[in-house]
């Protein structure tokens, strides 16, 4: 078992990247790995209340931890507008995740 940090910086409306990332995360989780999704830059829009937000809620219920970058949320006026289960974190926490908490980081 390994721990995998997926960093998503793309929004779910212009590319299929977020769907790919979610597929990777769910597959890794099904195989018994510890998986977290960190939303940054335009990636935070994936957690808005909407179709993709529902997918994230479902992934969270399956055990994938979901985080969102504080500055990206603030700059897009998304405070209080994200689906449940998403924890807001600052950049130092992302760095700690990369350096100390997760074996592998994949940035999309």
């Amino acid at each position, binding site marked *: 078992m390994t721990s995998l940090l997926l960093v998503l*910086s793309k929004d779910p409306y212009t590319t299929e990247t977020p769907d790919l990332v979610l597929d990777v995360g769910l597959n890794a989780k099904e195989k018994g790995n510890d998986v977290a999704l960190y939303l*940054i*830059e335009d990636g935070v829009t994936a957690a808005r209340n909407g179709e993709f937000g529902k997918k994230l809620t479902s992934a969270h219920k399956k055990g994938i931890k979901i985080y969102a970058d504080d500055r990206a949320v603030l700059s897009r006026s998304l405070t209080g507008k994200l689906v449940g289960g998403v924890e807001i974190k600052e950049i*130092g926490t992302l*760095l*700690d995740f*990369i*350096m100390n908490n997760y074996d592998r*980081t994949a*940035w999309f």
Partner: protein
Amino acid sequence: MTGKQLTIVSINGPYRDEGVFTMMRLAHAAKEKGITVNFFNYMDATVIAHRDQAPKEFPPIETIFGNIVKKGLKKPKADAIACIKCTDARGVTKYQTEGVIIGGLYDLGEWTAESDKTILIG
């Protein structure tokens, strides 16, 4: 001081998206935590440290990047390499900001081997 080392490989140029600024934020956080940062600027990211950028509506990324690299002369340090094939292709080899070394993928290989973690921002 943690004594840890992080290599950040960047492939995108400035002003297209927030990727370069995210890299800067990570680098600041790393310095605060005593982590040594290596920047490997690859492909379009070799434009990040190109001198004399004068964007009208954005902060000049060369200045921000250059300041981090220069301040990194103190520990915890920050080193920067720009890929020579990429800088040659873009005509920016001779115009990299102070502190950026022209290198190649062998250098990235060495940094990857030395570093605790290597990430690619793209």
